[in-house]
């Protein structure tokens, strides 16, 4: 270690920027959320917790919480499990793993906004290849498989697929129907995120020592599933924790697909928090409400990270 004054010039620019760009805005948002301030107005009044009361009582904001929670609670587990399954499968392949890896990672790299538009057309009721694929499959093997006719309790007349075929090709409108919009948005979220999780899991898998599997075999864990339970899953603990946290934080911030595809609709079923902040504060210029949502949002994220650190200290060890 060395003594000089150089550190001042090394550290202060970063400190100042951290304060001005990252910390000050939090306090600013906190301050604005207790006022009726709008950008452009010269004066404002303190209104106490009025903005927060609105947020937790008005239907719009209740719907906002519901759609955000739905999105996070679907996308996180599904994309994590898919990422893990894909990683384990690729890891056990003798050839071809690299090609699949490239393909599954493409959505992570590609500009999400462009891909949202591509999905919009893919899912379009009349122009899209999804619904034309379904319509062409009426009466055929596609109807049998996707209509779940192979399940003993699904009769071949009442399945969703057959009903749509019978009703003049009345297939789902995906993004335009309030029953399906949020699920479609979730699907695109999973499509985009799971490749990232897969790559992290692949990295995690390569760091598991081979000997552990031999040892598990010695102990009588013969089947793949038993070995997974005994070795793979516990050893991937830290990776899983990281993957879950980062996917959660990213899912909370979903915006691009919403703005392009649904604008929060239909009937506010896809009205997620980031879109709400954008719509209220930027488009409608109600800065104070936007600030209140921002504060709640930040609290969510900080709680989540503390929870993660707590779990790291308590549970994940081997």
């Amino acid at each position, binding site marked *: 270690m060395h003594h000089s004054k150089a550190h001042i010039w*090394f550290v202060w620019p970063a400190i100042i920027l951290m304060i001005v760009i990252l910390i000050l805005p939090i306090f600013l948002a906190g301050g604005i959320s207790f006022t009726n301030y709008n950008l452009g107005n010269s004066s404002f009044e303190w209104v106490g917790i009025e903005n927060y009361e609105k947020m937790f009582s008005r239907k719009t904001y209740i719907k906002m919480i519901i759609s955000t929670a739905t999105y996070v609670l679907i996308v996180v587990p599904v994309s994590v499990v898919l990422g893990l399954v894909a990683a384990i499968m690729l890891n056990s392949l003798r050839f071809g793993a690299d090609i699949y890896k490239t393909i599954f990672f493409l959505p992570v790299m590609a500009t999400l906004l462009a891909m949202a538009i591509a999905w919009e057309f893919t899912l379009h009721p009349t122009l899209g290849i999804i619904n034309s694929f379904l319509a062409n499959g009426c009466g055929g093997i596609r109807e049998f498989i996707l209509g779940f006719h192979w399940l003993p309790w699904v009769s071949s007349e009442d399945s969703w697929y057959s009903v749509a075929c019978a009703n003049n090709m009345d297939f789902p409108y995906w993004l335009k129907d309030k029953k399906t919009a949020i699920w479609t948005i979730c699907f695109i979220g999973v499509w985009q995120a799971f490749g990232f999780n897969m790559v992290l899991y692949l990295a995690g898998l390569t760091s598991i020592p081979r000997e552990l599997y031999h040892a598990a075999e010695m102990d009588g864990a013969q089947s793949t599933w038993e070995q997974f339970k005994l070795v793979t899953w516990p050893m991937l603990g830290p990776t899983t924790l990281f993957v879950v946290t980062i996917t959660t934080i990213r899912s909370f911030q979903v915006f691009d697909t919403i703005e392009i595809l649904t604008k929060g609709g239909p009937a506010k079923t896809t009205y997620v928090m980031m879109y709400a902040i954008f719509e209220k504060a930027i488009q409608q210029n109600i800065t104070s409400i936007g600030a209140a949502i921002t504060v709640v949002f930040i609290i969510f994220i900080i709680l989540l*990270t503390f929870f993660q650190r707590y779990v790291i200290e308590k549970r994940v060890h081997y």
Partner: protein
Amino acid sequence: MLARHYIGESWKHGLLIIGALIVLIPFYMMVSMSLKSQQEIQSISGGLVGAQEIQTFPVCTKHGYTEEVCTMRPYKYNFWFAFKKAPIPRYLMNGLIVTVSIFLIQVLIALPCSYALAKLRFKGREFVFSMVLFCLLIPVHAIALPLYVMLAKAGLVDTYAALIIPWTISVFGIFLMRQFFMTVPDELIDAARMDGMGEYSIVWKVMLPVAIPALLAFAIFSVVAHWNDYFWPRIVITGNRDLFTPPLGIREFRGGIDSDEFGPMMASIVTVTIPLIVAFIVAQKRFVEGITMTGMK
């Protein structure tokens, strides 16, 4: 035994191929639409590339071009007309300016700071480091609104500065570099001091070259994130087309989705999306490494 093994393997390939096909659907749709004619798009015919019959495009003649100019194969027309309608090179240039400036400033700020945190002893070092750790919790998108208010008050909306300023401090970069510098032996720095180098020269002439692998990973992470970012530019660029980054351009192309021709629209989207995808496919290993490495630390 061997046969069973192959059955197991092909079963996996079967599932993975279905997965890969689902993942590729929108890419297929995007490329296909950028090549086909409007009629083929609307009737969902022609497969991936369409028939590519030479024809005259009515939207083109409506824009005042002669019939002769407007007669060509659909794929050519889509891309040609895309470039006629929007300043695509400008958008790509803006993307480049913004991402490269962000990355350079991030390094300029983060590298000395992380060196100091890893290798210099000074009062308050622990405090600065815990500040970095705290700031790691704050996603910039989450505080976009107050940042926007600050920039608007400073009169910076609709400028390059607004696109760049919020990203100049990368606490993540500081953290990553600090972890990396911790692994650099002190002897290397001591030797440099013996040679009479000052701390500034040590940062840029000794530590920077040492940090190249970590910097490369960080560069990929940073450039990909900001090239693709849509939320922040959407907020601070309100109308000035000259400042549009690629995602804002994409949004503009989409414009009137029901009235316009889809082919040129998709062609512009493909053009804007492709640089990054090509870079990814060419330097795939580096990209995956960069994103996992920066992700795991």
